[in-house]
């Protein structure tokens, strides 16, 4: 039986079946189609303009390792004119993050990109090891998620970048759409399929892998011989997300297009205007100056709970009331450092932490 030819070039021998389309294609066509799809995602959404300083959120895992490689490739091939940086957050999880940061440091050498590593310890005065030792494994993902988001924004501001790109892939987004519907999180449901969101201080956040299948990212890393760390976080008890992920895998086995179909669904609806009107307006955190929907931002609330020995204060209403009943926080409570993106532009209007 003659070897099957690639269904894209009809020339080379097909060596893989594309998870996204089921087409049997050759290695070169796979690289081409993967990179071209990411390129068309970037150009369709007009994510960048020449001269932009872009930080790649790099964890050392498969998504960010491939993202760094693809961003470098596309920037060179299509002359985006971007200045690329690597930005890593060290959560302070012994045996998990320290190994994967080694991958990021190698990427720094390979691609010649400046690297900034910002640690939870430096920013919040707490490592995840210390947080888990106080609160246990339950709910620790709440702390880590909120802290990481703010840390990325603050790290990006310290690098004076315009844009952060993260390695969220199509599977992550599909999973998030399902979870937000099932949890009734209408605010996140409205924005989780957006390719670009506005972060702190006019720094935009984008997901160029929004339509890239996780399996294809792994396939790309495999054929390009990119090394990455695949360790699961040792504190990962987000049972709800775990359920959603297992469900999505079952659905994908039934029909691989389900991931794209869910994202398409998420893109076709929007939150009703009358519901939007009931959502809280965005304001600025009184303590650290970060964007917030309450007087204190989520990170400051979580941090205050940790500092005062009531870590659940930002998680349950009851604990919050108890904390409030004990009186206001001491003035000496830790303030999260606020990095200004552009000292000239923000010297007069940047909110300052209370003294």
């Amino acid at each position, binding site marked *: 039986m003659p070897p099957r030819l690639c269904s894209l070039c009809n020339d080379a021998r097909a060596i893989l079946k594309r998870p996204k389309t089921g087409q049997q294609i050759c290695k070169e066509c796979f690289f081409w189609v993967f990179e071209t*799809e990411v390129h068309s995602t970037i150009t369709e959404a007009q994510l960048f303009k020449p001269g932009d300083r872009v930080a790649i959120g790099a964890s050392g895992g498969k998504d960010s390792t491939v993202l760094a490689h693809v961003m470098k490739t596309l920037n060179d091939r299509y002359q985006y004119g971007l200045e690329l940086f690597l930005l890593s957050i060290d959560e302070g999880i012994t045996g998990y993050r320290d190994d994967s940061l080694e991958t990021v440091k190698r990427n720094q050498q390979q691609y010649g990109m400046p690297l900034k590593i910002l640690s939870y310890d430096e920013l919040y005065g707490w490592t995840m090891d210390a947080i888990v030792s106080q609160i246990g494994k339950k709910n620790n993902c709440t702390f*880590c998620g909120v802290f990481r988001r703010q840390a990325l924004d603050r790290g990006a501001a310290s690098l004076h970048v315009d844009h952060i790109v993260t390695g969220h*892939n199509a599977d992550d987004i599909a*999973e998030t759409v*399902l979870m937000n*519907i099932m949890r009734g999180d209408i605010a996140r*449901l409205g924005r989780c399929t957006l390719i670009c969101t506005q972060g702190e201080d006019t720094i935009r956040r984008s997901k160029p892998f929004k339509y890239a299948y996780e399996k294809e990212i792994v396939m790309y890393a495999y054929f390009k011989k990119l090394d990455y760390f695949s360790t699961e976080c040792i504190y990962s008890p987000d049972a709800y997300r775990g359920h959603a992920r297992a469900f999505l895998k079952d659905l994908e086995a039934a029909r691989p297009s389900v991931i*794209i179909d869910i994202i398409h669904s998420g893109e076709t609806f929007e*939150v*009703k205007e009358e519901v939007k009107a009931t959502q809280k307006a965005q304001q600025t955190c009184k303590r650290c100056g970060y964007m917030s929907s309450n007087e204190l931002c989520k990170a400051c609330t979580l941090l205050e709970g940790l500092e005062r020995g009531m870590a659940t204060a930002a998680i349950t209403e009851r604990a919050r009331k108890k904390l409030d009943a004990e009186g206001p926080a001491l003035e000496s409570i830790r303030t999260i450092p606020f990095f200004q993106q552009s000292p000239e532009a923000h010297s007069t209007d940047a909110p300052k932490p209370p003294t």
Partner: protein
Amino acid sequence: MSCGNPTAAEGETLMPRRKKYDKTKYCLRCKETLGNIVIRHAVYCKDCFFPLITHKFRRALEPSVNSKPDVSRRTALRPDGNLLVGFSGGLGSTVLLDLVHRCYVSMDESTMPADGGKQHPRHEKVWKRVTVCYVEICDAFPGMRDRTSYVRQLAAKHEGIDFLPLRIQDAFDPEWWETVHAPRDAPGLAVNMSSEELRLSSLASSSSSSSSSSSTPLQALHTYFSSLPTATAVPTTIETLIRLLLLHTALRTGSSHLVLGTSLTSLAVSLISGVSQGRGYNLKEEMQEEWVPDAEDTSVYRAPSHQAKDKKVAANGPRKKYVRVVRPLRDVGRKECALWAWWRDADVVGNERWPWSGAKQDIGALTREFITGLEKDYPSTVSAIVRTCTKVEPKGQPAGLCVMCARPVQEGIREWKSRISIRSRNDSQDIPPSTSASLTPCLCYACHTTMTSRSSRPAPALGLMASDRPTVPLPMWVGSGVPLPTRMSEQRMRDAVHEFMLDDVTDT
């Protein structure tokens, strides 16, 4: 990117179980009797349970009975037509049939609201004629039982309700089509399912070129099912066929309303399953929809032989043709439905398991299993899903109705698909010229995906005779919805340029 761990099952990682009831064991309504059922942490006794469910049923149905949905509920209910009850034999539709019969046919006093007195307009009969329609699917697969006669017996227990059985292959039957619509040359269409473009051809020409393997509606159905690319496409297609058969039957019976027995639980399942199949644009329709047939379909034909009652409806004069699909049990969970059926001693036919091997590869079945399991640990899941979906709306204006499922279609689907998944190195091949006869532009995202999206697994083995024909016959309603290039008649040409004609030219 996330750090979720699906295998984590340590005690501290799970949400702590709450007590089944919050405060007291006594009924929340009457506060006197020990409770018999806990509905999401609230306790009710048996006596209070029935009015509670009846109230939820009426609250979900009655605001949409009058043609203007916002009319005050204190006024009389005057629907524009009759009522059609879609009956599957499952728990939800059994409870629905019982409630419809008690509330609107036998006028059971216990189901009437206490306020307003016995002379209140709501004590009058609302629907002139109530029909139960059952669509039998046993012919779709070998080895399934025909339950029509059993369902007929069940329906007969509900005095005053007509019974109208259909078979799933009616969707491909020109004779059935003619009982609904005026006899006309509905173009029978066939489609080539081997490509994304779904090339169309005339059924007459494609059958003459090969053996007459699809000469009967049942054979057409089998050909259609055995040509579907995935196992999950089969149940999705069955659902669509049943829904459209019911909609057209509603037209046939002069019904302005079609009620379905979708419970809160099954609504949550169908919403998540719909999202998973790319039906996000139609979430609103999944909960409640109003189907207005195309202009051509307004000439609904009522065969003279089809019962005298039809004539009576026709004699009421023409009404605006629409069918409002309502799910009156959308606030009632599956547990409450089960208890209603148990306490009312209602016979539930039940849903028969499909005998084919692809049942585990069914997105709908997987979703049902998942939601049911999730509800045990997170009891508010189903209501959260439904509540969330009521807070979103489709983006932008629809570009028409899908010819397959009759639901609104979003614009730019083909462009989106070809951009997200590149399937060719030649840009010009991605979207072929629009002049070619293709079904794709007339389909919504979900229907197109159902007909074209493939799996790495082999196509389902349905135990049906595989067809050797390259083209597959389409359901009857598709033929009337696809705009095919036709030779323009002189009259139509004249109509098109009428306003530019001078009088003397027009007259000649």
